[in-house]
């Protein structure tokens, strides 16, 4: 650690126990479904069974007449236009007569009843007349002339296009000794958060609507609720409960608008809990991508050119797809420096589940392609895959294909060297196997790079208030601890700055009446952005306390500092996809995977994994390791088993029995390696860690499968069927 970073005390980088651990191991932590109120009603939503249909009529009369039913409502009962959406409003929480439903699971009508049984019965009494429309299911067919439109105002079903041109692509290929081409495909996948979406809403004594919910960004929830229900944002108070995992899924609206709508219409408390199947049907997913990569390299293994086409399936509504596609373009060359690049990217609507944020946010898909390309290049050139990566990896001073010159905090080479050194100690050497027999062992490696923060011109900021007494402090911040441990990070930063024991710092309830907005728990940004806000506020109150000396306040009056921290400015793309600074920071990682393939069944068993990740500085070492281990395994699921297939727009895996999340038996022993290459602007040098932990995995597994059985699998998941087919056995 260089001396320009404040040296605090031994709390930073410690293995302090998470401050919410006790309430979680005792079952006392309250998630939204754990809340009950007297006189509370139960909300439910009727969802479309059709991927694409026009609503001819909705008859709620029988449902309304059922004893125990207090309200039955549809989109016609919402104010005009009654829409919501993260990038722009294009989604209705409920269907209107004459309007459309655009995916299986789209909300049609809602009921509130005195018992869950009455609510269930009421759903069965709602009569909806649908005019079934042709289904848009294929991304390429969707763009052909005359294809049915998911949104009539989006020609060719195209939501968004982005282009990037860097260097001279022709010259780049002319200077290549070897050119390889390939198409890579990734599936629609579900976050499978353990806690299904839920919430409780009621009207307070002051007439405002109170919403208790698990989300990633309360302030943005409130903006969207206000817009859809046409009420002032100030009329909504949102309180964040314990959150049972998020991974991007809880950035989008789920129960929020419906709950507030029902509470306002009935005047009574309403609780709404998704079933698992409803959660899978109605919630956002990760974008399926089809990617074409044409790559040139010299005999010495220097990349000269990459020509890239990215096609992303948006599904039914926009959500954050514009930004996801732009992120894919920004990170289209992965962790490597490529002097000549062209990217053409399109985000296309189909009648599939809505796609939105999912840990990695558009970087996982291109990173998989790039790492497969790198492994194939090494193989074709007869070069050590580590050495090939070493020769091309982004370093301080590298020029990215966005035109940005990296100034520091670039931990790519450090992660690569740390992962391979640890792997070597364990006897794992990438790409040197080709064993025979029943158990074919393979070892593969891959790298990854992910931006931190919103990027591309957003004013990324967070507010924090620290109230301090001589012997204790309270941090007030609107940042959602989704399980990653951010509240513990705030407590550690405040305690270390104020020289207090960790137990003397508490985190105020995340209540919109009490805490300042700190932005979304996404983009691996909270430790960086909110961490800086907490650090600055803590430094200010520490200074105030010092100045007061013996006149420090008694317990009634704390000294207070409120800070809004603005992260370093970023800039949007110009018309060529060039920008001096798309992001204020990047996290890097490298993983080495050892696995075995059964050549008769195509089964893959991952044996050992080394995962090295540059986090700038670990504030909580245990939590950083937990992110690395958990992110790796989530990505192993993405690589090998997870798929949410649709047939003609109809989902076929809507339970956790059909959707294959890794179990403890699928998980290998994971060796996390924490690399600390301090960031120039992060608090105490810290960056982010959440998303980058997923990036190297699919490429590393793909390389290891090739090492084991000699075939490249260019489509996720790398299922036994795909492996056997590639081996010519199917």
């Amino acid at each position: 650690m260089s001396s320009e970073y404040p040296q605090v005390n031994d709390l930073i980088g410690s293995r302090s126990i998470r401050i919410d651990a006790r309430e979680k191991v005792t079952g006392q932590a309250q998630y939204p479904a754990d809340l009950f109120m007297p006189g509370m009603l139960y909300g439910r939503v009727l969802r479309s069974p059709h991927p694409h249909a026009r609503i001819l009529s909705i008859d709620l009369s029988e449902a309304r007449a059922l004893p125990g039913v207090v309200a039955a409502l549809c989109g016609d009962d919402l104010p005009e236009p009654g829409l919501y959406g993260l990038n722009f409003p294009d989604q209705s929480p409920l269907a209107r007569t004459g309007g459309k439903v655009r995916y299986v699971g789209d909300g049609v009508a809602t009921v509130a009843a005195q018992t869950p049984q009455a609510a269930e019965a009421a759903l069965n009494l709602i009569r909806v007349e649908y005019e079934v429309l042709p289904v848009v299911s294929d991304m390429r067919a969707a763009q052909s002339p005359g294809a049915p439109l998911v949104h009539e105002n989006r020609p060719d079903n195209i939501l968004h296009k982005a282009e990037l041109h860097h260097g001279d692509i022709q010259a780049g290929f002319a200077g290549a000794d070897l050119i390889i081409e390939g198409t890579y495909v990734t599936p629609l996948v579900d976050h499978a958060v353990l806690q299904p979406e839920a919430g409780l809403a009621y009207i307070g004594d002051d007439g405002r609507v109170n919403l208790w919910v698990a989300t990633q960004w309360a302030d943005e929830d409130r903006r969207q609720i206000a817009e859809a229900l046409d009420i002032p944002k100030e009329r909504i108070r949102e309180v964040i409960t314990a959150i049972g995992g998020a991974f991007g899924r809880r950035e989008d609206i789920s129960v929020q608008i419906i709950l507030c709508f029902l509470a306002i219409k009935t005047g009574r408390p309403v609780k709404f809990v998704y079933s698992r199947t409803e959660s899978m049907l109605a919630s956002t997913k990760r974008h399926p991508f089809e990617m074409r990569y044409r790559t040139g390299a010299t005999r010495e293994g220097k990349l000269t050119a990459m020509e890239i086409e990215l096609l992303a399936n948006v599904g039914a509504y926009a959500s954050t797809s514009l930004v996801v596609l732009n992120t894919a373009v920004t990170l289209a060359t992965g962790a490597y420096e490529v002097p000549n690049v062209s990217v053409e990217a399109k985000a296309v609507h189909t009648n599939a589940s809505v796609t939105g944020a999912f840990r990695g946010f558009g970087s996982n898909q291109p990173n998989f392609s790039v790492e497969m390309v790198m492994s194939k290049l090494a193989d074709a050139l007869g070069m050590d895959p580590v050495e090939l990566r070493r020769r091309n990896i982004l370093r301080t001073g590298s020029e990215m294909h966005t035109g940005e010159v990296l100034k520091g905090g670039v931990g790519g080479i450090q992660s690569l060297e740390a992962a391979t050194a640890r792997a070597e100690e364990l006897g794992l050497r990438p790409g040197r196997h080709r064993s025979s027999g029943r158990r074919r062992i393979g070892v593969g490696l891959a790298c990854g790079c992910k931006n931190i923060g919103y990027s591309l011109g957003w004013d990324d900021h967070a507010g924090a208030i620290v109230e301090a007494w001589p012997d204790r402090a309270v941090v007030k911040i609107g940042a959602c601890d989704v399980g990653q441990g951010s509240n513990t990070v705030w407590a550690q930063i405040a305690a270390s700055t104020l020289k207090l024991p960790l137990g003397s710092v508490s985190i105020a309830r995340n209540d919109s009446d009490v805490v300042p907005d700190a932005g979304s728990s996404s983009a691996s940004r909270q430790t960086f952005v909110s961490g800086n806000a907490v650090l600055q506020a803590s430094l200010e109150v520490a200074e105030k306390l010092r100045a007061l000396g013996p006149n420090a306040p008694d317990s009634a009056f704390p000294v207070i500092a409120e800070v809004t921290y603005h992260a370093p400015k970023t800039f949007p793309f110009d018309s060529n996809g060039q920008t001096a600074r798309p992001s204020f920071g990047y996290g890097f990682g490298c993983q080495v995977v050892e696995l075995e393939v059964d050549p008769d069944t195509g089964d893959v068993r991952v044996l050992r994994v080394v995962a090295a990740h540059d986090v700038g500085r670990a504030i909580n070492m245990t939590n950083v390791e937990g992110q690395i281990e958990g992110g790796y395994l989530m990505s192993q699921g993405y690589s090998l088993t997870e798929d949410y297939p649709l047939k003609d727009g109809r989902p076929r895996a809507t339970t956790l029995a059909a959707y294959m999340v890794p179990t403890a038996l699928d998980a290998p022993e994971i060796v996390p390696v924490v690399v600390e290459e301090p960031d120039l602007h992060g608090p105490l040098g810290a960056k982010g860690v959440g998303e980058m932990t997923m990036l190297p995995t699919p490429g590393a597994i793909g390389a290891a499968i090739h090492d084991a059985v000699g075939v490249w699998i260019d489509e996720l998941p790398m299922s036994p069927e795909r492996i056997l087919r590639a081996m010519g056995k199917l």
Partner: protein
Amino acid sequence: MTLHAISIKVNGQFRAATVTSQMTLLQFLREILRLTGVKDGCAEGDCGACTVIFNGRAVKSCLVLAAQADGAEVLTIEGLNGPDGELHPIQKAFMEMGAVQCGYCTPGMIMTAKALLDANPRPTRGEIRVAISGNLCRCTGYSKIVSAIELAALRIASLKAEDGSWEILGKGKCIHHE
């Protein structure tokens, strides 16, 4: 609708109620007794978040009808810590090893671990993985959970050598709930 009068010993106390045929043990524990430490993650036996100890075995409470549990002895996460709030060694180990992230799988995971250690006090890492393979965790990658259960096994072994205080828990000790 058929109603059943049932009496279940939950966390050491007999709890009587009249329930419908359809009500699951999970619903009984959460909705009637308000033991919300028992988590509902899927209600169809796939995730393990609702695991409780049922007559000494780890059971997914969503797969048992409340009426079937009549006369049974059930231990939930709420009954695991001692009367003074003292944590069970498994709970302590989960905290110390970083086995908790979002926490939603945690109560079920801990109950599965308790049933395992009751039956097999010194499991290998492989045996621990088999035991918890019906409990999904989406956050941790399981490594730290396996390590926590290993640590708890060691600690319970040394506590038993001292006075056996953790052996009696869950076997009839009365713990009061609001």
